[in-house]
Structures are given as C-alpha cells and as structure tokens.
C-alpha cells in the first residue's frame, strides 16, 4: 500500500479546520449545557415530590435518545412545526439539549454527595438562597464532579462526529471529504482517529488533574 503522506500534508488545513470546529462546538455546548444543567438542579432537588419526579423523568428520558436521532429531529423534523435551523444552530442545539440531560444528572449526583452538614453549617452562619448556592454548594459540587464532567466531555466529542451526516464541517466531515476526493480512506480516517485520540487524551489529562482536587474535597467531608 502506498501511504499518501503528501496528500495528507497538503490537506492538513482541512483537518485543522475540522478539528477547530469540533473543539469550538464541543466547548461551547459543554459550557452552555453546564449552565442549563445547573438550572435543572432547582426542580431536581426540590422538596416538592411531584416536581422532583417530573424533572427526574425528563432527565432520564433525555438520556435515552441516540444522538444521531436527536440531530435528525432537530434538523429534519423541526421544520415540520415551523422551526427551521441552519446546520450550525441545529448542531449546537442538538449538542446542548443532549448534553444538558447528562449534566443535570451528573450535577445532581454531585449535589447528593455533599454532606448535609455543609448546608447546615452555612445556614448557621447566615447563608441562604442564592448566596448559599453560589458560594458554598456549587463550588463543592463542581469540584466533586469535575472528573465525571471530563469524561462526559469525551463522550460529547465523540458524539459530535455524528454531525458530519448533516454536513457540519467538523473533523469527521473533513476526513470523509478528503478520503472521498483522493480515494485514501485509510490514511484519512487514521489521521482523524489520531486527532480524536489526541483531543481525548488532553481532556483525560485535565480530568486526572481535577481528580486531585476532587479527592481533596472528598477527604474533608470525612
């Protein structure tokens, strides 16, 4: 087999652009879904049982849909009810909607893992409401679930590859484009595979660093 390194180096900008778009899409949607997921914490940890159960059911349902199917629904089915999105908005919407369900579940798990004494102590010092959430609870929740969020980010990066099917020019699209144009499927997909591997390895490195912080918080809870 003739490994076409020359084509690869010529088309390097394509791959770079694809990688950049993947990073941008995943980073942005992760941040957005983290915010939305934090908002979901309110009904998920509510003292009213019916609200809590409804919210939990919605989160569970949201985690049952295959990503590609959701992308199809956002891109092909929504126009039938009058919502027409361009592929970038559709991509971002799908990623955010999909990931929010997972973020909500992850944050909820983190919330539950914080001992009740932390809330009680904060209350004893005069904390309440939004201030209590912002200064005492959320920092501890985020630190505790940092590694889990990192793993979810890796999942998100991989799911984003499906978006090439609706012609979003991310990394897999670039690889597919190059391979179909130059007839070099092995080289092309190998390169994109390696680039995904690099991306995920970087996230995993960050996860390992954040795991140290997480264990610090866990140890102090005794």
């Amino acid at each position, binding site marked *: 087999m003739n490994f076409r390194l020359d084509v690869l180096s010529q088309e390097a900008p394509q791959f770079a652009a694809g990688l950049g778009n993947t990073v941008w899409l995943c980073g942005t949607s992760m941040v957005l879904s983290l915010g939305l997921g934090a908002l979901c914490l309110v009904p998920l940890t509510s003292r009213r049982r019916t609200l809590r159960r409804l919210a939990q059911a919605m989160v569970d349902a949201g985690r*049952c849909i295959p990503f590609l199917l959701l992308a199809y629904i956002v891109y092909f089915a929504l126009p039938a009810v009058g919502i027409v999105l361009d592929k970038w908005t559709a991509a971002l919407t799908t990623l955010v909607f999909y990931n929010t369900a997972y973020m909500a579940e992850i944050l909820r798990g983190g919330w539950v893992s914080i001992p009740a004494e932390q809330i009680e102590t904060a209350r004893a010092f005069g904390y309440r409401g939004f201030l209590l959430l912002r200064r005492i609870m959320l920092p501890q929740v985020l630190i505790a679930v940092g590694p889990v969020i990192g793993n979810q980010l890796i999942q998100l990066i991989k799911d984003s590859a499906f978006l090439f099917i609706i012609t979003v020019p991310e990394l897999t699209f670039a690889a597919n484009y190059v391979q179909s144009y130059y007839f070099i*499927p092995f080289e092309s997909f190998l390169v994109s595979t390696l680039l995904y*591997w690099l991306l995920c390895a970087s996230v995993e490195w960050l996860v390992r660093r954040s795991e140290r912080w997480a264990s610090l918080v866990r140890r102090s809870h005794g």
Partner: protein
Amino acid sequence: MLSPAALVDLLTGAGTTIAICAVAIAAGMPLGLLIAAGRTGKNPILRFLCGLYASFVRAVPLVTFVMLIYFGLPALGVAFDPLPAAVFALGLNTAAFNSEIWRAGIADFSRGQLEAARAFGMTPRMAFWRVMFPQIWRKSLPPLVNEMTLLIKASPAIAVIGVVDLTRKARQIAESTYEPLPAFFAAVVIYGIVLLALVAAARLLERRLATRVA
C-alpha cells in the same frame, strides 16, 4: 400518523439494531475481559499493547471507527461486507470500554482473598475463576449494563456504511412520506422501550443476585 406498513418497516430496522448490538455485546464482554487480563497481567508488552488498544478505541468516535474499518482496512487487504463490519466495529468498541470496567473491578478486588486462595493451594487461574470472577462480575454489572445502553445509543453509527438500522430506517420513512415527525417520534419510542427493557432486566437480575449472596 405512521401507516402500519411503515411501522412494520421501522420495526425491521429495530430488529437489525437489536440483533447487531446483541452480537456485539455478547462478543464484547469476554473480549473485554481478555484485554483487561492483559492490562493487569505480568507481561509488560501485553500490558502496553492492551492498554494502548483500550485507550485508543475509547477515544475514537464510533462513526469514525466504523468508517476506518469498512473503508480503510481494505487498503491493507482486509475487506468486509457492511454487516460483518458493523458487528466487528461495535464489538471491538464495546470490548475496549468493557476492558476498562473489568480492569477497575480487578483493581478494586481485595488482595487478601487472592492470598488466601493461593495459600490454600489454588493456581492463579483457579483463584481467578473460582474466587475473583464470581464476585467482580456481580459488582461490575451496573457499569456493564450502562455500557450496553451506551452502545445501543451509539449504534446509529453503522448507518454510514450502509447498514439500515432503526435510525436510518426512520430517516428513510421520513423522507419518503414527507412526514418526519411520526417516523422519528416512533423511533424515539422504540429506542426508549429497548433501553428501558434492558435496564429493567438488569435491575431484576441485580435484585435476584443480591438476595442470594447477601
């Protein structure tokens, strides 16, 4: 709404998805165990290779991996038909994740029990199968089932190499009837039922195991 013919058509797609995933899951679990054994074994080369495999496959999107196997491997002389390629790719993928689950279970396992087994004259292999494995497979059941649900959710990837699974079927029906909503909605429901059934069966199994061992 969806015509009965379209529904039956959709269900054949569901059948394809379930069949392929079932085979991949069945093959992936023992393969994952083998790789985990390699990663925790004594041979450093084996440890490195298995670790590399697991880390690599877990980092790659399933779509890209499937295309690498179906479109890319023929360049190296290995050609597949779409269906076997799909099963192969899914199986390799889930094996990598399973190896991580098994590896964690093995690492968590108390060394004291193994020592006791050796002290009583068991060979390492005997100790593994009679002492370690019965305990770790029960403990690993929840993450293993979770991985199964993840595989089913990622399985639409096989559509890109021409396998008509549930998601692709739904799209075909949507495009031929110009009515995307019923087709996609039905697909969501079917996936939901399959995943729910899987999780419910797993919980049942967990409960029955707990009463016996506890």
